[in-house]
């Protein structure tokens, strides 16, 4: 969505803080794929890929890529000791079976109830659903990393999504270039405002009511 690499990195870095040791995490394509770069080296995390890998490690060096080893986005990866390979049915059995602690996905729209729309790009051909529905519906925690507004400058966080939904009420946390927003039972909770924006900027660019937790950052 035209965000610079610094902004994208800041979002990824913020998302990385949500990852706790021992978690099993699936990363979507795009900004989510930058998240591992910001994990503390001692953080023991298992990265899962829909095509059938558990225990992905850092990206390989140039020339060290293996044509037979990639993530679900088709990018070359490595594996850590303790990794395993399996078929795609098993990869999704893990997802639907509730074995994924977290997924970090991109988003087109998120509603104040945590509905997510991230698969039909308006005005474009329908690309299909891929594995997004299963991840969004079944991962224990769903974090959406997206630009706060669309390319027309319109809010992507709305009272109701206008695009076809990927899944209802699935989103737990939204991290944008402007803010960190939690989807709580009471509604959207503004947890952090990113520089150089102000709370007022965020409210203006958000299409839903934002609560502020007492004692929380404004």
């Amino acid at each position, binding site marked *: 969505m035209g965000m610079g690499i610094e902004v994208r990195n800041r979002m990824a870095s913020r998302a990385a803080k949500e990852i706790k*040791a*021992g978690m*099993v995490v699936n990363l979507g394509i795009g900004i989510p794929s930058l998240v591992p770069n910001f*994990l503390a*080296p*001692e*953080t*023991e995390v*298992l990265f*899962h890929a829909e095509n059938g890998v*558990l*225990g992905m*490690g*850092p990206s390989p060096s140039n020339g060290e890529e293996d044509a037979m080893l990639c993530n679900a986005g088709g990018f070359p990866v490595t*594996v*850590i*000791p*303790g*990794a*395993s*390979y*399996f078929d795609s*049915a*098993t990869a*999704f*059995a*893990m*997802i*639907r*079976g*509730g*074995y994924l602690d977290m997924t970090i996905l991109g988003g087109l729209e998120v509603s104040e109830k945590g509905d997510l729309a991230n698969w039909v790009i308006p005005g474009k051909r329908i690309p299909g659903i891929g594995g997004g529905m299963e991840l969004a519906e*079944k991962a224990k925690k769903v974090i959406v990393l997206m630009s706060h507004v669309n390319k027309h400058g319109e809010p992507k966080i709305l009272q109701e999504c206008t695009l076809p939904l990927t899944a209802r009420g699935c989103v737990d946390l939204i991290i944008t270039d402007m803010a960190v927003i939690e989807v709580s039972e009471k509604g959207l909770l503004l947890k952090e405002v990113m520089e150089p924006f102000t709370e007022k900027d965020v409210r203006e660019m958000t299409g839903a009511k934002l609560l502020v937790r007492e004692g929380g950052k404004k």
Partner: protein
Amino acid sequence: MEAKMEMQSKVTTLENALSFINDGCVLMFGGFGGVGNPPTLIKGILQKGTKSLTLIGNDAGFPEIGIGKIVSAERVSKLITTHIGSNPIAGKLMVEGKMEVEFCPQGILAERIRAGGAGLGGVLSDIGIGSMIEVGKQKVEMGGKTYLIEPALYADVAIVHAKKADYFGNLIYDKSARNTNPLVATAGKITIVEAEEIVAPGMLDPESIITPGIYVDMIVESEGVDWKWAWE
């Protein structure tokens, strides 16, 4: 980078593992005709005195072998299985009304367990239409055929026997002692593995791991198998 690659060990004591297996729980077990039942965990359950179990697994073992010991000791209030022919005590308890038994075709039981672990509601089966197997089950018509809806099975605790585990819980099995173990390993809220050998992550070939460690919560070292004389 090395530190990042260290995984937290799931190896624990038998006593700790048994603390998760309590009266009235739904206990799923791996194994087929005694072979592949986890003997050390079964011995522990017997010694602990756990009772009123709902047991789910392939068969009732033999009276003095494998899971059969738990059945024989009258610790089971309900058994969901495929046959009890090898354990006459199971039949006696069923007839006396001391143990409820629900039968399922063998491959369908395996699929129901797999469906539980795979987050599916169940599978559509054409096995046993018109027999006692269909009692209490929904039917659907599809493409001119009738299918039974065979619902997924879940367990509070799944107990599994493996040849080798790394301490993250990646598992390999041993020949036909694999049988239902990889399926059962996926379907427990808590999955406890009894392994003949425990190694460090990276020691098992990632291509040959049958059960990825994600499914495993606890690993106990086996005191060795006791089923050899099943056929002696």
